[in-house]
């Protein structure tokens, strides 16, 4: 069976730096951080990390009430990002109902705010009678994908890979496979997530969050840095349009990149610890499937969340695969860790940067940690270099690794 080529023809995002790819890249190029001190979070006993990277929720009433009522905050982000991605791709909005366009949008959980509201309403009396009918739809694990599909009247495949921090990359991998196989002509792929003290709290109880910079929020997170002390949660949504390459060429679509390969695998080892060997396997297999040698790669956009263990494992894994010459950076210094949305938002930024001949730096990387040395860190200003081959990493709780390889024209 002849497998199709797959192009990325549209991008949409809501991130801590604003709505749209332009806001995202302008913010990154200006060295802006989306991290803030979160007012009111100190009311949560035991929550030590009081910083996060919020996105702005606005223009939500442009979504008609009947579509919006089942959307929690993250689904609104996803719907807006998806709508922007379709417009960016120059697709006829009516094509969404053709059955040839599907979506794969993942997240860690359903709407965190709605989940908390549900339990706060119901407990401690265990009284269900006060619950809104829409709470279930906002909380359900496939809420983002479902709501994107309903809002845009998508009649093709609707999938929701919920794989925590690897959700968006697994969504892109799914979309890539569906288009490659000819099951769909176009797939909207990405992820979404929203902030809540309990989301940060989930990482906080594991001692994985940044706690030393509550009074200097923009100094954290610090991926790969000697003084990093953990991750900072962020929110938003990123959606990319993956399309049959020949179809894209035929309709004169702008091609941001071609997806060359994708791989995902698991360490089978530990629910939270990163695993260097698994990361290495995943990067190598993705490259093999892409038909790309490590020496041909121009940029590795890292997962690196600024956790002590995760950054170390990933730096060592990157060194194992690529040596010390390929430029590496993480955009989580600017954006925080947008969890289920991270790979899509970060890939949008990375591809846009590469199109402009730039590799974006890791914000807050001032002194490379000795355990993360041995790779070519991009820090300070963007590296001006024309490159084509990008590797995007995502690693998640549960030992999940996912890697995408793209070629920018």
């Amino acid at each position, binding site marked *: 069976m002849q497998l199709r080529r797959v192009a990325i023809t549209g991008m949409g995002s809501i991130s801590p730096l604003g709505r749209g790819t332009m806001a995202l890249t302008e913010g990154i190029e200006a060295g802006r951080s989306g991290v803030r001190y979160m007012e009111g979070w100190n009311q949560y006993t035991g929550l030590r990390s009081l910083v996060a990277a919020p996105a702005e929720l606005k223009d939500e009433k442009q979504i008609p009430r009947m579509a919006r*009522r089942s959307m929690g905050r993250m689904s609104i982000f996803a719907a807006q990002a998806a709508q922007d991605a379709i417009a960016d791709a120059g697709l006829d909005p009516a094509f969404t109902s053709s059955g040839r366009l599907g979506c794969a949008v993942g997240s860690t959980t359903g709407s965190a705010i709605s989940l908390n509201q549900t339990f706060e309403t119901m407990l401690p009396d265990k009284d269900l*009678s006060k619950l809104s*009918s829409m709470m279930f739809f906002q909380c359900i694990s496939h809420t983002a994908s479902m709501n994107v599909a309903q809002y845009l009247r998508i009649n093709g495949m609707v999938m929701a890979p919920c794989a925590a921090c690897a959700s968006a990359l697994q969504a892109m991998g799914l979309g890539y496979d569906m288009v490659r196989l000819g099951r769909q002509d176009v797939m909207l792929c990405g992820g979404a997530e929203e902030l809540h003290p309990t989301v940060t709290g989930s990482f906080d109880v594991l001692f994985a969050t940044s706690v030393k910079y509550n009074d200097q929020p923009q100094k954290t997170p610090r991926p790969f840095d000697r003084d990093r002390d953990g991750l900072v949660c962020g929110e938003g949504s990123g959606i990319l349009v993956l399309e049959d390459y020949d179809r894209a060429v035929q309709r004169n679509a702008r091609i941001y990149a071609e997806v060359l390969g994708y791989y995902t695998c698991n360490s089978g080892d530990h629910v939270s610890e990163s695993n260097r060997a698994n990361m290495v396997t995943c990067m190598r297999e993705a490259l093999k499937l892409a038909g790309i040698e490590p020496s041909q790669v121009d940029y590795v956009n890292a997962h690196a969340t600024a956790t002590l263990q995760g950054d170390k494992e990933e730096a060592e894994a990157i060194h194992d695969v690529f040596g010390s010459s390929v430029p590496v950076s993480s955009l989580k210094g600017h954006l925080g860790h947008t969890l289920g949305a991270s790979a899509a938002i970060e890939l949008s930024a990375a591809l846009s940067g590469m199109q402009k001949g730039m590799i974006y730096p890791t914000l807050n990387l001032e002194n490379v940690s000795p355990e993360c040395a041995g790779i070519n860190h991009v820090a300070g200003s963007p590296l001006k270099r024309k490159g084509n081959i990008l590797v995007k990493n995502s690693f998640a709780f549960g030992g999940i690794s996912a890697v995408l390889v793209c070629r920018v024209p």
Partner: protein
Amino acid sequence: MTKEEVIKIVNNVFEELFEVPPEKLAPEARIFDGLGLDSLDTVDLIVALQKRFKVQIREDERVRNIRTLNDIYEFILTLEQEQAKKS
């Protein structure tokens, strides 16, 4: 509670929860055809009315007869009278 007070609270629910413009909130307005609510919205309508008026509506079969805003106003007034009699 007077009928005017009931009207004000019920209309406020429709404005805030269902985003119905105030000019559409005439007593004879039909909830499903005219104001655009559907069966999922009726769950939320019941929850909101129960909360605002401190009455129990969910299991009351008379809910099925409601078609217009005025039907809601009258129903609430009836429930309040029944509650007052019990106490």
